[in-house]
């Protein structure tokens, strides 16, 4: 499948097609093509570095939503063995927007839960573009509790524009489903590691995002509301999304500065969509280290630390 390029990635796309053109001319062209191609590649790498070094918050939002960005299920075969998907909430249905199941992560049996947006049109519809309904969050909760019974650490992967804003979701208690997950995750008796791998969209993200560790990949965002939604409310115009993105400070670096995440997981040059294998390896290494640390912590300490961590969230002053 041909790659898609964002507006600010255009110069990269142009160089890439030039390289491809030259390479396809082959040896019969007479001139020293290999050398020329090598030159262009070096130039492209420099360009990628330059462009990615100064992406602004709106560009970061677009990168987090990049159509070529790897999704949860792209990482599963690269990071885990023996994945067995577990479907359904046992009450209403199976929500394709959230995928869950058990697997081995570098020798540890773990429970995985992640959003899944869907790649092609058909899959996007089946997965509702990664926007979960109550049954999705209830499936996640069922799997968290299963993991708790069998002492399996939980690893979640966040990538959603938000919880589905639909009539059906409201009728089945979207609020209740999210609220319950927040409460139960705060005290679940196994380590929980959460990672934002794309879009961290508000309550729909948080519903599988409460745990002992929270990481964000380098080119991802986490926000209380989408820049478009924020612009519509505060500027009365969605066209102000760029300004809203700046104001909301939703990047991994922003959240690190606010001390809301434990770390930023580096991505290969040019972002996760350039090299999925390398991205999976970089993420796996960070998560493995986090997991070993949490597994070495006695359970009562783990739970106490999690409660403390949640209790101290927020910045305010005391007028005295």
């Amino acid at each position: 499948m041909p790659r898609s390029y964002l507006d600010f990635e255009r110069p990269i796309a142009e160089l890439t097609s030039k390289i491809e053109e030259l390479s396809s001319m082959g040896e019969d062209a007479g001139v020293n093509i290999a050398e020329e191609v090598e030159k262009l590649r070096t130039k492209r790498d420099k360009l990628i570095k330059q462009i990615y070094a100064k992406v602004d918050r709106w560009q970061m939002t677009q990168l987090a939503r990049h159509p070529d960005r790897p999704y949860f299920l792209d990482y599963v075969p690269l990071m885990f063995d023996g994945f067995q998907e577990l479907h359904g909430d046992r009450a209403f249905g199976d929500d394709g927007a959230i995928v869950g199941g058990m697997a081995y992560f570098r020798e540890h049996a773990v429970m995985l839960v992640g959003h899944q947006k869907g790649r092609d049109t058909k899959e996007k519809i089946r997965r509702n573009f990664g926007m979960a309904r109550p049954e999705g969050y209830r499936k996640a909760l069922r799997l968290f509790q299963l993991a708790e019974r069998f002492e399996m650490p939980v690893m979640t992967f966040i990538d959603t524009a938000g919880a589905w804003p639909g009539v059906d979701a409201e009728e089945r208690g979207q609020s209740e489903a999210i609220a319950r997950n927040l409460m139960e995750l705060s005290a679940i008796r196994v380590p929980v590691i959460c990672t934002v791998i794309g879009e961290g969209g508000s309550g729909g993200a948080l519903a599988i995002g409460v745990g002992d560790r929270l990481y964000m990949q380098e080119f991802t965002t986490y926000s209380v509301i989408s820049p478009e939604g924020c612009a519509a409310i505060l500027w009365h115009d969605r066209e102000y999304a760029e300004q809203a993105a700046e104001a909301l400070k939703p990047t991994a670096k922003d959240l690190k500065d606010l001390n809301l995440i434990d770390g930023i997981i580096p991505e290969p040059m040019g972002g996760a969509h350039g090299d999925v294998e390398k991205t999976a390896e970089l993420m796996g290494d960070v998560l493995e280290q986090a997991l070993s640390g949490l597994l070495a912590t006695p359970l009562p300490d783990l739970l106490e630390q999690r409660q403390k961590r949640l209790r101290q969230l927020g910045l305010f002053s005391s007028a005295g």
Partner: protein
Amino acid sequence: MNWITRLIERPSTMLGGSKQDMPEGLWIKCPDCCEAVYNKEMQRSLMVCPKCGHHHRISAAQRAEFLFDANTFEQLDTDLRSQDPLDFRDKKKYRDRIKDASKKVGDEDSVRNYLGDIGGQTVSASIFEFGFMGGSMGAVAGEKIVLGMERALERRCPYLLVTASGGARMQEGVLSLMQMAKTSAVAKRLKDARIPFICLLTHPTMGGVSASIAWLGDIILAEPGALIGFAGPRVIKETVNQELPEGFQRAEFLLQHGLIDDIVDRRELRDGLKNLFGQLLQRIYRQAEG
């Protein structure tokens, strides 16, 4: 003592009330049934239209007056102030929005904490003030809710949460979102400690407040006609591109869909709460005595 005698005893607070949402003049036209109602009569029925039962919005201060037994309650935790961690500005600076809201409402943020008696039972309560930036929950509101819950844990008394909120406060970014996790974590401690926790959802209760602490009570009540939901009706309409069902996201709709325990008329709320607290705590009282 019922609300009538309380009214007679403290006419100044009842009739003076707070400035916002309190129509002036001798007569009020009910926006729902369009009947003209004598102002004093409206206030005597706790700002519920005596003709049609429409529940008018009231301030957190009025709510406290209506809820607690006379001279038994005090406001607490008033020293917390919102910071501006993101240095947020849209068309207006967040700092200025806070200043303006404080001036307008007289409160420092969107939640008031109280300790007082309801039907003789001491209760720790947090009440949202919708007039303060749409009752949005930022770090101060989150902290106050937690302090209210922790007070209930310490004193082993029930916790009452009265919501009226548009959701998380955008101007504090992810820090606001995290208040959902923070309050929910402490709700778990209430559950484990068997502290009765009752939520009263009033108009409106949406977004991040709805999808966290509002739904974690042991018992969830709502006022008639209150709009309650995760996504706002306009957002849903734009997303699904279809007309919304009649009465969608109203308290009655939620009751029908099995999402709340009951709808309670404001005029019967005190007696209702007294009854519920008594029932929830009877066994625990006996154990304490035995």
